[in-house]
């Protein structure tokens, strides 16, 4: 049970060149809108045709430009879920799910599968409702049930929660997590939400401008995002250009700070630090900073800092629990940027 994708597609000014591989796990494609992540899913599902390359799922070749193999979407058995769920508006919940079971030729088996999946998703009482009569959560459950009853080899989820209200999201995310666990095969999740991606996936591929910039387990990708875009997508908000000074030192030009660092590779162009990785007090890479702005969040404070008497053009954000700042609050504070928390980024 696995997926292998190595494709290229030219779309005018945009060039998609994606290579990825995953086993029985959830792989998230994390990227901004227009980065090519949805296009990748469409290529796998057979809705879009890549110019070159190869797509394999469970050792079945779905697409191979050299061998002129290009299975129809119907032959691919991929379970594709769109962000709007794409329920057929003229059919009831029951009819929608029956439509998903159409590959099963035996009528008795088909009906049994439909009944079973409706039961397990709690949709039996809604059997005769039209999609327009369902809540967002019920629509998502119907869409998932309809896909699972079609026995897909792989699940392709395109922004599954973006159509939902915030308070519903979290609950439905748990339902989807359960569905993914029961499914047990490869799941590709497309999203731009780092929290959602972190909670649901095992591996992450960061997609930017049509290519995969970083690829690894979620722990690796969050700890070492490799590129500026990767750092931004995984939620790092403090990023500065850097200048190598040699002897294990760099100058973060936007922050006007000289930092002690471990070895950095020559193609490093920027340095980043997550807002909650800044530590109060003195230590390595310590600075006396002036508070430029104090921003109150629902459950935390973000304090914007600038080294005292510096030419810092871009203050650093430091996020901490409310009670911590309530204790520390002062016009000037001492903080340090622990070398092990610094992210070294390519462009």
């Amino acid at each position, binding site marked *: 049970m696995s997926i292998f994708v190595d494709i290229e597609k030219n779309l005018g000014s945009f060039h998609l060149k994606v290579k990825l591989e995953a086993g029985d796990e959830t792989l998230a494609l994390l990227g901004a809108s227009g980065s090519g992540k949805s296009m990748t899913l469409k290529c796998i599902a057979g809705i879009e045709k890549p110019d070159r390359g190869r797509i394999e799922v469970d050792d079945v070749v779905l697409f191979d430009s050299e061998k002129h193999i290009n299975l129809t979407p119907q032959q*691919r058995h991929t379970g594709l879920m769109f962000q709007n769920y794409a329920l057929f*508006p003229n059919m009831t919940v029951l009819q929608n799910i029956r*439509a998903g079971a159409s590959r099963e030729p035996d009528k008795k088996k088909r009906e049994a599968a439909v009944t079973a999946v409706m039961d397990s998703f709690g949709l039996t009482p809604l059997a005769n409702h039209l999609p327009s009569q369902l809540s967002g959560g019920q629509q998502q459950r119907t869409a998932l049930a309809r896909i699972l009853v079609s026995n897909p080899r792989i699940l392709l989820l395109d922004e599954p929660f973006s159509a939902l209200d915030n308070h519903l999201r979290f609950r439905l995310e748990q339902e989807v997590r359960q569905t993914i666990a029961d499914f047990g095969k490869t799941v590709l999740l497309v999203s731009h939400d780092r929290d959602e991606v972190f909670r649901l996936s095992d591996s992450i591929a960061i997609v930017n401008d049509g290519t995969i910039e970083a690829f690894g387990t979620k722990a690796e990708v969050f700890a070492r995002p490799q590129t500026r875009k990767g750092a931004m997508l995984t939620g790092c908000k403090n990023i500065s250009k850097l200048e190598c000074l040699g002897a294990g030192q760099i100058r973060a030009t936007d922050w006007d700070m000289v930092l002690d660092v471990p070895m950095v590779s020559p193609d490093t162009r920027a340095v980043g630090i997550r807002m909650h990785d800044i530590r109060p007090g003195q230590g390595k890479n310590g600075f006396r900073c002036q508070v430029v702005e104090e921003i109150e969040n629902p459950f935390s404070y973000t304090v914007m800092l600038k080294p005292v008497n510096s030419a810092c053009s871009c203050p650093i954000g430091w996020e901490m629990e409310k009670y911590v700042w309530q204790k520390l609050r002062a016009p000037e504070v001492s903080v340090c940027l622990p070398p092990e928390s610094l992210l070294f980024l390519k462009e």
Partner: protein
Amino acid sequence: MDWFPLFNSIRIAAISTVIIFFVGIFAAYYIAKTPRLVKGVLDVFLTLPLVLPPTVVGYLLLRVLGPKRIIGAWFLKVFGLKLTMTWWSAIFATTVVIFPLMYRTARGAFESFDETLAYSAQSLGLSNTYIFWRIRMPYCRQGILAGTVLAFARALGEYGATSMICGYTPGRTATISTTVYQLWRTNDDGMAFRWVLVNLAISFVVLLAVNMLEKRTGRQKGGA
């Protein structure tokens, strides 16, 4: 009162509407998929009958279907069939005139279709035929229905091209519109007025039917 013109009008309109229902929908479906340049050219060409005077359409039709013209002569020679001056000749005229109405409305409806529905259905293994008839057509039902009714109503009222291609022979090629003109021309104002009333009644029923259909589908779509 001789009811032949009513019967003839309805049969001509019904047959041409059925033909155009399929032709218009398939043209709309396939042309929507062609490259932009081809689409633009075909669009102009296929919409032309909508803006041309019906007499020009009639003239052009006679130009090809007349007994001495290419197609007309061939049919006469091979099948011994005269394509003009029979009751069904009017079908040539009405189909050409109502085609753009069906084609335009169907294309508008298809363009509003949410393609993710088709993509999902394909991924679920549903055939393209099933998707077309069971998902795309129901989704676009209102537009297509409106186009069909408009086409039927227009076919019922067709005068210019019809009178040129099948003339006016009482009991053979007379339609309501040609009868009204003929009666008025021969100063039979009373009969002409009766046919005008018949025509008004039919139009009224057709429009009422459209409104009722729209209300019903509106309720279905609205939901709770």
